[in-house]
């Protein structure tokens, strides 16, 4: 039987044209990639890593993130989120980036050594050795507590050395391939360096050795320059996305600084702003359910005296203990805020309890906490008010406090 006839719409000379060959190889490449991905579908994944395991593996300073910290508050941190972002990026990104660049340099260096050692001689080992140095420095930076300035400068200088060394090698070997490596190195390190002025200066200086080497090297081969062009595109893309990520991070940091003001740093309770932000929804919810809301005000009397006698640290401890005592006494779901310097406000669903009960129970919880052991007894005063959200506002409920204020009751 004769072979099956196929389509005759196109001349069969199409099949031997050069573009068709390239196109066929392109499709072949994609197809093999997809074949790999298809086979990968049958490889089972390991189970998800539980956060517990991640925490066990990675040491993190939990205290830094707890909002109930009693650390001294530094204004520099609070006011300059961009400064903090830079410091954090330096601490986190630079060792990682150095390690990655080092690993890449080491791999390229080793491949070059294997391929060209006999032809070129010991000069090819320089690249691999430099890669090793970068990895070691990355390890040192990751482990040692260095300032962000030091890591930024280390990064900039090492990357300049890398570019200079590669350009020098390109000139020595008279190879456009090595020159391409130098260009790639400069392009990929630029986005990371862009965060700091020293990095920008370094990137500009880095162009000089590449320029000189480019003038010396006579060989130019198409593929290397194609790769260089691709890398340049990649680098600019990374640059763009990094800038985007940077902007997001700055925005997040700023927003976070704003939210910090909705939490009281000493006790971890809501601040006045924090409570007001939530009160609206709280009131709406109570209004829908047709239930009243209750407001409890609980003041620590003479907190200024306690501060004067035992120090501000003790004052902060008393505030924290009172907040915890309130949390344990008031019904769950109550929003508690540090309303004034020495006073808390609780906003709850349903009518507020009797102020005497609040003072007694909170006082008991305080006594159990043992915060005042060996010190002067803490005196509390409380006032309560209730109302229906449709009829009164939060602002009206709060000043209503003095009218139903009970006689002061001392508690230890």
């Amino acid at each position, binding site marked *: 039987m004769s072979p099956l006839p196929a389509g005759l719409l196109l001349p069969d000379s199409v099949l031997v044209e050069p573009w068709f060959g390239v196109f066929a190889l392109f499709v072949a490449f994609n197809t093999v990639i997809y074949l790999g991905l298809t086979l990968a579908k049958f490889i089972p994944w390991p189970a998800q890593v539980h*956060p517990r395991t991640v925490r066990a593996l990675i040491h993190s300073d939990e205290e830094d993130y707890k909002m109930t910290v009693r650390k001294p508050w530094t204004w520099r941190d609070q006011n300059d989120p961009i400064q903090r972002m830079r410091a954090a990026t330096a601490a986190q990104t630079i060792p990682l980036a150095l390690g990655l660049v080092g690993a890449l340099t080491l791999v390229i260096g080793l491949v070059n050594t294997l391929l060209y050692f006999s032809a070129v001689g010991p000069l090819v080992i320089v690249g691999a050795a430099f890669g090793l140095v970068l990895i070691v420095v990355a390890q040192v930076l990751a482990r040692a507590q260095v300032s962000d300035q030091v890591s930024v400068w280390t990064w900039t200088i090492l990357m300049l050395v890398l570019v200079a060394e590669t350009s020098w090698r390109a000139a020595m070997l008279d190879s456009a391939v090595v020159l391409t490596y130098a260009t790639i190195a400069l392009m990929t390190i630029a986005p990371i360096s862009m965060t700091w002025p020293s990095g920008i200066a370094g990137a500009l200086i880095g162009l000089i050795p590449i320029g000189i080497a480019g003038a010396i090297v006579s060989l130019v081969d198409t593929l290397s320059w194609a790769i260089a062009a691709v890398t340049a595109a990649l680098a600019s893309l990374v640059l763009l996305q990094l800038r985007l*990520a940077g902007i997001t991070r700055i925005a997040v940091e700023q927003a976070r600084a704003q939210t910090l003001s909705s939490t009281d740093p000493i006790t971890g309770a809501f601040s006045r702003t924090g409570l007001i932000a939530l009160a609206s929804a709280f009131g709406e919810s109570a209004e829908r*359910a047709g239930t009243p809301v209750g407001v409890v005000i609980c003041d620590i009397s003479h907190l200024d005296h306690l501060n004067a006698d035992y120090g501000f640290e003790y004052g902060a401890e008393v505030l924290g203990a009172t907040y915890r005592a309130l949390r344990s006494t008031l019904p769950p779901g109550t929003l508690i805020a540090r309303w004034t310097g020495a006073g808390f406000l609780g906003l709850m669903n349903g009518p507020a309890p009797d102020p005497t009960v609040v003072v007694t129970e909170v006082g008991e919880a305080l006594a159990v906490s043992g915060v005042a052991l060996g010190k002067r007894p803490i005196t509390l005063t409380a006032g309560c008010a209730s109302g229906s959200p449709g009829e009164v506002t939060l602002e009206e409920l709060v000043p209503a406090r003095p009218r139903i204020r009970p006689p002061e009751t001392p508690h230890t």
Partner: protein
Amino acid sequence: MPGDTAPDPIPGRPFVSTPLPEPMPRRSSGFYGRLVVIIVLASVALVTFTAYTIGEYLSFEREPVPVQEVFIGSWGVLVSGERPPNQLLLLALLGIALIAFVALAFETISSLMTISPRRRYLEALRGADLLEAPPGARVRVTVLVPAHNEEQALPVTLAALARQSRQPDRVIVVADNCSDRTVEIARDMGHEAFETVHNSHKKGGALNQVLGKILPLAGVQDVILVMDADTSLGPKFIEAAAARLEADPELAAVGGVFYGDPGGGVLGQFQRNEYTRYSLQIRQRRGRVFVLTGTATMFRAEALLDVAAARGVFIPGTPGKVYDTAALTEDNELTLALKSLGATMVSPPECYVVTEIMPTWRNLWKQRQRWQRGALENLSAYGFTAATMRYWGQQVGIGYGTVALNCALALMLITVLAMPTWIWFPFWTTVGAVFLLERVFTVWRGGWRARGLAALLLPELAYDVFLQVVFINSLWSITTGREAQWGHVEHAAAHETAAG
């Protein structure tokens, strides 16, 4: 039942009159949307260019392979021993290694996200250290069923809910702008009905209203199952999902794995095959979730509280609202929100749901257009962060897949049209056979119809091309700034038999 008696809020007097600072607005989709399109297209172009450069580089070394005539019995066929050069295989192998590395990097990053400081911050904000449920404590399941004129589908859905191996503790039907008997049906069947008030934000807005009411009163043991009115849950969904949440106090959400309703002819089968493959992929990924499906997902109430607290601060949206009503696909958006806050989530195979399929190509086009465009817009709202990196990669993957598949189809077409006689390529035939087997095996549990359709190969390729056209069209419509629309399928009574 509070849902029955809730009065309308009295307009006029707000509870709080103190003004608050302006929240962080969601980025307008115009500029950032276009930026997303540019980034996706540039990445696809870059990958394509790299692959093309490799092809060009290797074409210099390519030698023509002679064609031989082979006889099978008396049947003579022309066979070409042509196969890709070794360098191409090596480079492709490198490419696969690179993809594997990227996948591993995404996995590591998402693991690191679970110990995000944001999470601790939000826990401190809601006083989690004071009210922690011990592991294994029984959770209280509240089911929310948002419904917009669902009198046809609702009885079936609620009846199916009653057949669950573990009964929910509370069922609330969220009737959103209903003009039919949705509310009566819910109450007749003994459940609560919550009617939304002045909601102009579709499902997300309706859910925000009801969540705003139940979340402030929720405790540590509360979990919330949000499910569509046209969805029927697998019989053990609640039992399995609740058991997961009880066993792991850090787990934030359990998402459903969805399958398609029967019926719908070939178009229905296409969608069912797609869903079957997707569920297989989730199972093979050990429950790692791409999207917590809006059809049925069980959330820990605390996780939703954290999302509400973090909106406008860490993540885009209005402060205090769980769902971002500016998003076209609210389930994809909520997944991104939870992931941005370091939440862990899982989609176990027992938690399957059967959901409606699009009956016509037009409906399917609208649905996919909304999904695709919603996903891209959400990416533009969130930017390039540790939590969204994987999703960016996914978009680039779809783009590259579009280029690769269509080029392959074009190549085959040109070859068939230009070859004077039919020539067999054993290498490529084997590769094709592997793809064919993969297509058939991945829909094996879908039954003989599914396998038959997959075995034909070409129809499913055409369906893939359709989805890719949707992808390109959504990129185009974002670039031109065309308004996106919601699609809603009006249910015929026939749906009852289909879902039941």
